[in-house]
């Protein structure tokens, strides 16, 4: 087998910036009669202050609730007439909206996105109705012990930085936030000079630029949003959090402070994660939905094949500022959390002691090369990747990531493992199940460990 020369990033991306500062990125892809439009805003939960946690995500919800020129009941139906799907998401650095539909829908999609940027209604009754929808979303997440643990561990690992609170927000903030809080946030960040419009698909790029100017050109720019960034104080020692709650299964998380996407350590960390848990790629929209190739990954072989975990996973996501590298484990039924943690720590420490071998590096590079191809398999994914990296890391990231992966040395991986996976940058979380009143267990089920 030879190393592939397949380009991970498509050529012929065209860019323009409107007079009001809106960046427009177009990638023509003519293999299917589809187009995907994504609007990206440089605002996420990392821009939120205490008391207003969750405001970015709530604003995202409100931007599906009608505009001056699109009544709420008509927001639904415009894209559907072209067979389209629409959605949006908010995370720590960004908020984004997408539509993928037949290419004849381009003009309507740009109209919707321009309306969303400039003319959101934010009617009081709609804000109140959405408050309970979002609390329902939060409570649904709390039904999942793994997610519950993730929230607690993240908040413990990041004490000062706003990346530490959940994107959906804390319940008390969701209860107390007002319509004006939402609207002020919307007006401050939803301006063309804080946004990127990405279009990929069966379109003519010149036509897209003309349409973008027509729909967005009259929207005035605003003052660049100030982002008083917080530097997380250096961690002085291991932190631990334990949740004891009704449940059936024990979960372990181990998180470490991770480098920002633009930091020189980021790509060696990607390789390190591939060695530990298998390569996922770097597409937040699609690459983390299925199991990665991980049967030869260290944590899989040592913990799953070793009979202490039923699942291991790693998450290193490209972010604007330092976030977290998360290792997650599900204890095999009957295995004590202490046993699981000792096994996980043993594997991490062995890597820190002796580094990786050349075969592991070669495998990680090949995996990442393949995943970078797979995660660009549709116009929706292509547009996502262009917008994501434009927003959180700059356009150079995607263009250079393959070469940077190929240039990583075993010494660099060992170095980041030694510096970044030690006890003083580590937070450990346990979810210890208390036997609650669940549906009657099958008689053959072993008891949950105490």
């Amino acid at each position, binding site marked *: 087998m030879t190393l592939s020369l397949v380009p991970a990033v498509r050529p012929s991306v065209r860019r323009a910036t409107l007079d009001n500062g809106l960046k427009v990125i177009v990638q023509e892809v003519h293999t299917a009669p589809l187009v995907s439009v994504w609007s990206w805003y440089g605002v996420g939960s990392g821009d939120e202050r205490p008391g207003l946690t969750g405001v970015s995500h709530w604003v995202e919800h409100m931007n599906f609730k009608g505009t001056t020129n699109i009544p709420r009941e008509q927001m639904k139906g415009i894209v559907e007439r072209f*067979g389209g799907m629409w959605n949006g998401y908010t995370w720590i650095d960004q908020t984004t909206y997408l539509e993928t539909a037949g290419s004849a829908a381009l003009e309507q999609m740009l109209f919707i996105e321009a309306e969303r940027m400039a003319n959101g209604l934010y009617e009081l009754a709609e804000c109140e109705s959405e408050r309970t929808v979002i609390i329902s979303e939060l409570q649904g997440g709390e039904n999942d012990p793994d997610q519950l643990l993730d929230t607690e561990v993240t908040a413990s690992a990041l004490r000062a930085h706003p990346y530490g609170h959940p994107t959906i927000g804390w319940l008390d903030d969701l209860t107390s936030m007002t319509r004006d809080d939402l609207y002020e946030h919307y007006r401050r960040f939803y301006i063309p000079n804080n946004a990127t419009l990405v279009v990929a698909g069966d379109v003519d790029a010149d036509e897209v630029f003309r349409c973008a100017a027509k729909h967005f050109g009259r929207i005035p720019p605003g003052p660049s949003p100030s982002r008083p960034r917080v530097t997380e104080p250096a961690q002085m020692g291991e932190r631990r959090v334990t949740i004891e709650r*009704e449940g059936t299964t024990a979960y372990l998380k181990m998180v470490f402070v991770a480098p920002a996407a633009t930091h020189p350590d980021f790509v060696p960390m990607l390789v390190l994660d591939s060695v530990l848990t298998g390569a996922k790629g770097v597409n937040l929209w699609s690459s983390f939905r299925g199991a990665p190739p991980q049967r*030869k990954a260290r944590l899989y072989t040592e913990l799953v094949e070793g009979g202490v975990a039923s699942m291991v996973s790693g998450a290193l996501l490209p972010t604007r500022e330092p976030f977290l590298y998360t290792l997650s484990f599900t204890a*095999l039924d009957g295995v004590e959390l202490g046993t699981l943690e000792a096994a996980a720590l043993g594997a991490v420490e062995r890597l820190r002691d002796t580094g990786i071998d050349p075969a592991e590096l070669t495998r990680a590079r*090949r995996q990442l090369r393949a995943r970078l191809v797979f995660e660009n398999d549709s116009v929706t994914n292509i547009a996502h990747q262009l917008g994501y990296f434009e927003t959180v890391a700059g356009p150079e990231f995607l263009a250079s990531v393959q070469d940077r992966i190929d240039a990583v040395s075993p010494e660099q991986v060992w170095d980041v493992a030694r510096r970044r996976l030690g006890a003083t940058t580590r937070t450990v979380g346990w979810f210890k199940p208390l036997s609650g009143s669940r549906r009657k267990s099958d008689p053959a089920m072993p008891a949950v460990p105490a």
Partner: protein
Amino acid sequence: MTVGLARGLRPVRETLDNGAVLIAQESSATPAVAVNATFLAGSLYEPDHLTGLAYLTGRVIDRGTERRSAEAIAEELDERGVSLRVGCTRHTMTLSCTCLAEDFDEVLAIVIDVARRPIFTDDELTKRRAEVMTALRQDEDNPAVQAVEVLAEMLYGATHPYGRRTKGTGAALQRMDRDALSAFHRRHVRPSALSLAIVGDIEAGRAIERAAAELESWRSADPVAPAVLPPALPAARRCSTVPMTGKAQSDIAYGFATISRLDPRYYAYWMMNNVLGQFGLGGRLADNIRERQGMAYYAYSAFDALPGPSPLVIRAGVDPRQVERALAAIDTEVRQLGAEGPTEKEVEETRQYLVGSIPRLLETNYSIASFLQTCEQLGLGLDYDRRLPALLQRVTMDEINAAAADVLRPEVAAVAIAGPELPAEAQL
């Protein structure tokens, strides 16, 4: 040359002497290939006393063959960035993956070797069984899974293939040994039960040729497909609750057993369901429960079209104090659509949406392969993507009204609720 799909699919299909069906569709959208090997070997085919056998077989099947050790399979796939998924549904077991086009020959050979020559060692069986036991424990702690499983049991009965859990039960898992897995594999995972779809940056003729070379010496007798009998007609509404302390939200599953995917009324049912709980955020259900009442993050209905009597299931996750209110809203929407049918505007919007969404169903190699498998399993024809718009255009208002009237009857619905138990006075 770029091979596009702007004018629809043009797959090549070939049947080998041993009954295996090979389907290949070239698409150079990315330099990758999706491989999807589907066998009629789902939980429907397992003996009643070994529920979960198909699922466990799928968990162990890729852990060593007569030619490759588990270690070698892991090495060869991991080296290429390939994650082999083995999925098990009621009707099928599917081995699927995506690989770089340059790795196609080697990866296809591994996939077919895994399907054809697994050895099911005791060591692997023990490990994978422990994982499935853990997954069952996780399911016990998941209100959404609990609500849906209890609903299926109510709709079909605990022993019906659509009513029992695909993962099986702990007791049944403990009874399974390597002989049981080997026997299931021998009887059901065989070429005459296989359709293999290959989609991506590979010339179709070459894909067929490679697959034929790997498969043609594999011999077996024809499988016998068990019939899926319709459940008894419900005479009354049935409700069941699963108390789960420590949970923040209650999950509602509300449904009906309906028609087969092969029934000519299928398209009317599909459109009716789209109006009820799919269009936009979740059709009429989401308009009421989420948009107007702000009660739930999700409220929708899903029509899981199967060869047997298919379930139509309404789902919502709500504050435990809102369960009664949410059920009342579901009843209202179900009753109204059942009694009055959809409006002409709703039907036309739905029709436009479903016809227009066909290219999106074919956006990735993986989704094309899944689509082609559906066409093959249900005998829809290789030109189904081009015939589908006309099939939807032909559905009349009367047919949709009849579908709604047939199925949407709250008085015979089955309702399952999983979540924290609250005193009656706590309902809002």
